[in-house]
């Protein structure tokens, strides 16, 4: 049974525990960063941050400031375009685990030419993979494959104190997503699930995607 995440952004407080837990579990080093005028830090995904809480603020129709948080990560697409593009150049550079549905960059991704790696990055509808210029590897969330294949929750889910993130069998997560959407719609009528048929990381958004992030959803 493929696994899925539900990320209910209406519960996210941007504590960034998930971001830190991911970095910690993958033993990713600290990087130099800079303040760009928001609390979003680092400013973007990079080879040392597979998970990033994105911040966005806007005024609603009443002039009230709405602050949205978006814990961005690889969506582990059901039909991953990145894999198809990578396969054309170096088969096996990106693979998909049948058991869990995890889409994984392998060591073979370092064999991709710079142009081919860029083609993979640009093919992603969610702007996720990043090229590590030192190792030449493509990097992104690996669904904590080592943990999940041992029956354990991904680190981001385990560390979330608010219940924003849930992880489990796809059919149970889809059922929970629909249930939560029905609850959220009572207070946020525009709420919707982002591309639930196409991805294994299903975001519940309270309003249009432009109020979160350009690549928050594809459809």
């Amino acid at each position: 049974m493929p696994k899925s995440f539900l990320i209910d952004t209406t519960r996210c407080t941007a504590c960034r525990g998930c971001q830190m837990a991911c970095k910690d579990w993958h033993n990713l080093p600290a990087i130099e960063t800079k303040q760009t005028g928001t609390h979003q830090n680092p400013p973007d995904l990079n080879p040392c941050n597979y998970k990033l809480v994105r911040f966005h603020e806007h005024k609603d129709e009443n002039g009230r400031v709405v602050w949205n948080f978006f814990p961005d990560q690889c969506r582990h697409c059901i039909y991953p375009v990145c894999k198809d593009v990578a396969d054309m150049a170096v088969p096996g550079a990106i693979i998909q685990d049948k058991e869990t549905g995890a889409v994984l960059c392998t060591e073979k991704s370092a064999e991709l030419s710079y142009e081919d790696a860029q083609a993979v990055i640009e093919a992603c509808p969610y702007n996720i993979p990043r090229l590590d210029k030192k190792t030449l590897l493509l990097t992104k969330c690996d669904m904590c494959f080592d943990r999940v294949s041992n029956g354990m929750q991904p680190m981001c889910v385990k560390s979330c104190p608010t219940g924003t993130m849930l992880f489990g069998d796809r059919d149970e997560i889809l059922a929970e997503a629909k249930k939560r959407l029905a609850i959220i719609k009572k207070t946020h009528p525009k709420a919707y699930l982002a591309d639930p048929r196409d991805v294994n990381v299903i975001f519940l958004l309270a309003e249009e995607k432009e109020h979160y992030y350009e690549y928050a959803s594809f459809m």
Partner: protein
Amino acid sequence: MQQSSQTAEQTFTDIMLWRPALKNFLTVFSPLFMAMDKLSNEMVTNFDLFALPACQPERMQNGISILADFNFPDLAQPLAHISAQLSGQLQALPNLQGNVDPYQKYFAQVHLSEQAILWRSIVTNDANILQELAEKLNLDAAILHFLAKFFFSVLLKALVTKTYGASDISKEWPWDTNNVWQQGYCPVCGAYPTIGWLDKPTIDERNTYLLEGGGRKHLHCGLCGANWRFLRLSCPNCGINESKELEMLTCTDNTHGESLDHCSKCNSYYPLVDLRERINIPHLDAQALGMLHLDLIAHEKGLMPLRLSFWNSFN
């Protein structure tokens, strides 16, 4: 999130992937565990079972389990049915091959007075109680005890489900209400637990920004299938609640949320699984059997299992 528990087979499959060394052992018992669950569920609907007494808070607050002084009606018919239905799975157990028939003949018509003796030996987990009966029947007391535990377990699980509802990990049992049951033994049958578990946090819609609970300790009775909440820092055997006396054994890598909780005062231990670590909710009886590797280490350290079972008795 409402999560369904795994079947015994699913839990065994996971554990065999993690610990291939246990594969031969678990493969032998997987069909038996599956058949027991199926039979127990069938009996709830297809068998004319009696109901167990309701939970009485005053009695339970004094540590008296529901079946402590319960007079069972004649169980000959359900026991005969269970014995016949599990015949194939028991015949397949390596040490019982060709040796089950006389026991099945016996369980096909157990006399009422002997049912009480069998029941006492199961709840107290003492095969010696059956010695006299076994000699009279020309049977082996240990095998009689071994089989009777399986048969009574199927029946009790069906009775518990019929009376108190299906066993669900997120269920609030009658004895959990107001914490009326605070003992280390089962509130229904009085047996010691085979395994403990720490629960997952839940979403409470009234609290928009934080998860509710998580990490509370529960104990599981492998005999009747009941679960009950228990103090996190207390020994179910001797009741001591000093943290320095309560210790934990765990693997150094890939723990899967598994550990053995043991008491350095009374030397008892029981397996524990932290469900906050797990994606799926395991079948608890299968999970306990799959932690045999920790039982071996506990045995080497001179610890005693809280509930003796066929997989953790090394003598």
